């Protein structure tokens, strides 16, 4: 018995000593929020340990709502969200927040129409009509009209949507709100909405499964999910009138198209769905990090800004491998200014001539 105590005591002492050395050298940053960018954030955290071995970043993908709440409660150093904070939420933190775009995501319509192998075309009006329950058959003239040469069956359309609150739903409903006044008025946009029709599936896999298993189903999933799982998806007509295939390139184009019209003081809480431009995929969005404009701890602030700077520059090269669309250069430029304006107690954290470490 005595020996066991001895071993235990030694182990505890060892742990304490270990913890001591850790705290002496390391800075720890914690963040929480959106699940959609979690794969690339994890990748960045991993790769960044090579750049900064003494920095430990702990990112928890608890959902955008949770991210905003934790950020507001100051329980994390940074938050992350797929849908921007509302004006009233920003008032709660006394305006002390920057939305910093990190990568882009797109959402695609996926379907299961028996006997149809061609890639179907959709317009915003048609998608809104289907999701409002106004278009109920695949051979409705509004669908056949934009899909010449495809013979569509007299089959009920079964709408599949997310049952869990999600940034994907935010992008989808934001797009439908823009292209359909009827949708904007009856349903609106949000991470969870009051669906007029349809079946709910949990997560991208849940929606994809309903679509796969139900003849006549139409749902929406993240582009990344569709690409990684070889799920076919439809073309969507953009503002310029072209039917566009969602790719990383057409998604980045959407951001470039939308940002071109922004002034330099933008707070980045912009929707880039239904953006201007010829080769632009219309259902895409930024995902944001939430960082305070004025922080309290200089060491942490510097480490955090170094990391964000690295992520929007060097980090962007990991996007393609994980099927995220990288930020257009104009956005990165604007973000550099934003990062340089962040302060601790009124003193800027980054030097004016900062070019990354």
């Amino acid at each position, binding site marked *: 018995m005595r020996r066991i105590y001895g071993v235990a005591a030694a182990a505890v002492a060892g742990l304490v000593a270990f913890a001591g050395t850790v705290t002496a050298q390391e800075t720890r940053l914690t963040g929480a929020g959106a699940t959609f960018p979690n794969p690339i954030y994890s990748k960045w955290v991993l790769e960044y340990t090579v750049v900064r071995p003494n920095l430990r970043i702990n990112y928890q993908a608890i959902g955008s709502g949770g991210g905003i709440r934790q950020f507001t409660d100051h329980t994390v150093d940074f938050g992350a969200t797929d849908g921007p904070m509302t004006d009233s*939420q920003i008032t709660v933190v006394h305006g002390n927040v920057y939305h910093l775009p990190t990568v882009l995501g797109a959402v695609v319509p996926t379907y299961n129409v028996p006997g149809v192998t061609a890639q179907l075309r959709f317009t915003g009006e048609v998608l809104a009509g289907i999701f409002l329950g106004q278009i109920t058959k695949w051979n409705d003239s509004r669908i056949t009209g934009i899909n010449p040469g495809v013979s569509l069956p007299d089959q009920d359309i079964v709408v599949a949507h997310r049952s869990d609150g999600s940034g994907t739903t935010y992008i989808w409903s934001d797009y439908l709100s823009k292209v359909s006044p009827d949708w904007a008025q009856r*349903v609106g946009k*949000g991470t*969870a909405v009051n669906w007029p029709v349809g*079946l709910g599936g949990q997560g991208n896999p849940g929606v994809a499964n309903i679509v796969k298993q139900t003849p006549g189903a139409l749902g929406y999933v993240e582009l990344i999910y569709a690409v990684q799982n070889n799920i076919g998806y439809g073309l969507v007509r953009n503002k310029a009138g072209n039917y566009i295939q969602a790719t990383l390139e057409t998604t980045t184009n959407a951001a470039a198209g939308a940002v071109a019209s922004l002034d330099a003081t933008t707070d980045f809480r912009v929707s880039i769905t239904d953006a201007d431009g010829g080769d632009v995929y219309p259902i895409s969005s930024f995902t944001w990090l939430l960082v305070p404009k004025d922080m309290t701890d200089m060491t942490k602030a510097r480490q955090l800004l170094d990391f964000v700077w690295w992520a929007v520059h060097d980090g962007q090269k990991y996007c393609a491998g994980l099927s995220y669309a990288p930020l257009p250069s104009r956005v990165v430029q604007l973000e550099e200014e934003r990062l340089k304006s962040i302060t601790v107690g009124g003193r800027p954290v980054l030097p004016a001539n900062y070019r990354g470490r």
Partner: protein
Amino acid sequence: MSRGDVIFRAVLTVLALLLPLLLLMIGVELVSEAMPAARQFGLSFLTTSVWDPVRGQFGALPLIFGTLYSSLVALAIAVPLALGCAVFLTEFAPRWLRTPVATLIELLAAVPSVIYGLWGIFILIPLLRDHFWPVVRPVLGHVPIFSGVFYGPSVLAAGVILAVMILPYIAAVSREVLLAVPADQREAGLALGATRWETVWHVVLPYGRAGIMGAVILGLGRALGETMAVTMVIGNRHEVSASLLQPGYTIAAAIANEFSEAVSNMHLSSLFLVGAVLFLITIIVNALARVLVWRVARGSAVGSTAI
């Protein structure tokens, strides 16, 4: 009492009080977080069906209805099956078969619920939609509880999954109850010239009524709170529909689905409120079970007509 006994007693008292305290804390936390929604919506929270996070409008009737409905469907399927299993295993099965079958049934309880959910998506729903429904439709097509177009994810699918999940609990407890029925009772029944079937129906089952009731309530309690498997097959739709073929939603599933991304405070508070409702439902069900068991047990003690 020696000093050791005093300490022992104190430790046990603290441990015994800890659990009720935990229950109390859960209740208090639920109620306090639910207050904003309770104040805003009042009783209409229980009677309206609109669940609109965008406009901050919340009515939980479909959730409450779906929770009770899917659980009742599960009971309707599971109770006869489970009782049949229990009776077979205690009264009719050859001795060598009893233990293996009982063990296998109890093994069903060890399957994680997400596995049941996957089984539901890939096996049960296609089976119901492509093989069960086309056969049954000509017969039951105009019965109200089988109306509408059947896409697969539905209250029916949830009910069947839940039935499979609660069956082992009901069967195992019922079996224990029936095993505890004294052999005298059976012999007395048989001595009066009753067949084995009559003995089971008129003597053994009534004798075990209280225990069987307890087993059913145990199953019901589990069905009410089941989350993962249900959300995977029920279709997650905030709508009250009497048809078993239509999608529905349950309280537990809605909380699991919406909690992490609930952005507005009212949405969050509404989820707490509906959680408190579920808490209340389970308390009522358990209280009801106590009363039933108590009444039945007391009835037989004074010599009810059943025996």
